[in-house]
């Protein structure tokens, strides 16, 4: 007897073999969002070169969906311009994973927020170094 899977194969793939895991040395931007009280914390690191995201890494405390969306967002943003990356929505992340259960959509919000927060951090640093 087979039962319906909790998550899509893609989610399970990214949960089991997450891409771009770990702390980044000398990141250009870092975004930390979420709260352990609510069960999700995501830390996203980016390196920026010529206005493009050159590298991205993550560390996540959270459920399977939170880990998979973290992994997927790091994959999706690599090579994108900052403008493109800021426009990346949680829906696009979820779609890239072949969907998430409705109760887990907030996990993809976390990934979107972490990315925006990392880019904002980078932009602040640029502004303050220019001053």
């Amino acid at each position: 007897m087979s039962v319906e899977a909790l998550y899509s194969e893609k989610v399970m793939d990214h949960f089991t073999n997450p891409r771009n895991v770990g702390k980044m040395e000398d990141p250009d931007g870092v975004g930390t969002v979420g709260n352990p009280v609510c069960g999700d914390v995501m830390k996203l690191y980016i390196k920026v070169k010529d206005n493009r995201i050159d590298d991205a890494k993550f560390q996540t405390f959270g459920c399977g969906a939170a880990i998979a969306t973290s992994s997927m967002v790091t994959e999706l943003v690599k090579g994108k311009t900052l403008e493109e990356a800021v426009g990346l929505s949680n829906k696009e992340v979820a779609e890239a994973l072949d969907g998430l259960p409705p109760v887990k959509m907030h996990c993809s919000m976390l990934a979107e927020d972490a990315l925006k927060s990392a880019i904002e951090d980078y932009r602040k640093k640029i502004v303050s170094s220019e001053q």
Partner: protein
Amino acid sequence: MKIYLDYNATTPVREEVLELMFDIYRGDAANPSSIHFLGRQARKFVDEGREKVAAAIGAEPSEIVFTGGGTEADNMAIQGTAFALREEGNHIITQATEHHAVLNTCEFLEKHGFKVTYLPVDGEGLVDPAEVEKAIGAETILITIMTANNETGVIQPIEEIGEITRSRKVVFHTDAIQALGKIPFSVNDLKVDLLSLSAHKVYGPKGVGALYIRKGTRLRPLAYGGHHEGGKRPGTENVAGIAGFGLACELAAQELVESAAHLSILRDRLCGQISENISRVKLNGSPRLRLPNTLNLSFEFIEGEGILLGLEMKGIATASGSACTSGTLAPSHVLSAMGVPAALAQGSIRFSLGRENTVEDIDYTAKALVPIIQRLRDLSPFSEEDIN
């Protein structure tokens, strides 16, 4: 490999029970209320079920009312007492780690003018009987405190509380659903007036429960209809379910001592192996006053659903107190009430063992857990460095 470590959620129906129920379903259809010979046969199955359930808890058969499950039994006890004794008072005492069948029923009653005191528990999950006594006032009509907790297995001092409620003449209900078949108890030792039971936690069928109602205890029914169950719970009896519940209780009582010893050995073996091989693990709940089959552990720096998924991929079925597995945003109310920090509650796993578990299952599970925990910790933004 398939290992079931979620017996507190439900248990498989045991063979003997299944056979009896099959025989009843395959036999002649009849209503126990019919007076013909087939009706009398059906009545006999119900009567025998009632005798066996009563015997398992030291009650009289006439004090057992069958329900559609444990939740209904809790509702019948709490709502039934509240509405029957409304003229005498409007205060109910319960405690923070009760099952939602109790907590949400109390919340419902609050909306209908009753006042409810939710007593706190200590770090081990225990209620202080002195606090119960202090909370009793002139308006108190009911005290409801569970015998054993489903998440942590923590066993409350029901006998001591029973002494108090008896001397203060307040009706005392206990939800003994998790305790049945795991620890010995009787309604007279516990000094309770009402006690809830469920069949599917003792290798019986789902959809059958019982409420013990001590002779002379007033209760308003939840539903109205025929004369079944003394008018307290109308509706044609679930004949096969009741018979199956009775047999499951009888077998559980016969095997209790041996089963408790076996399960506590396995449980402690699992706990021992995990704490030997994994750092930063915490036991939730009293190590001493605990059901023999339950182990609730928090793994620091990680979230429970990830652990659960990892175990599932190894064929192991467990439960977690994390928000992600409960369908809410808050972690387990039981662990939170015990003062377990939210992040640790999110990283909790409940292993609840049962009669089909073997030493091999335990060793396999403990071994499988090591790389799962390590991998999730490697992914986590939190680590020992943050704390030290």
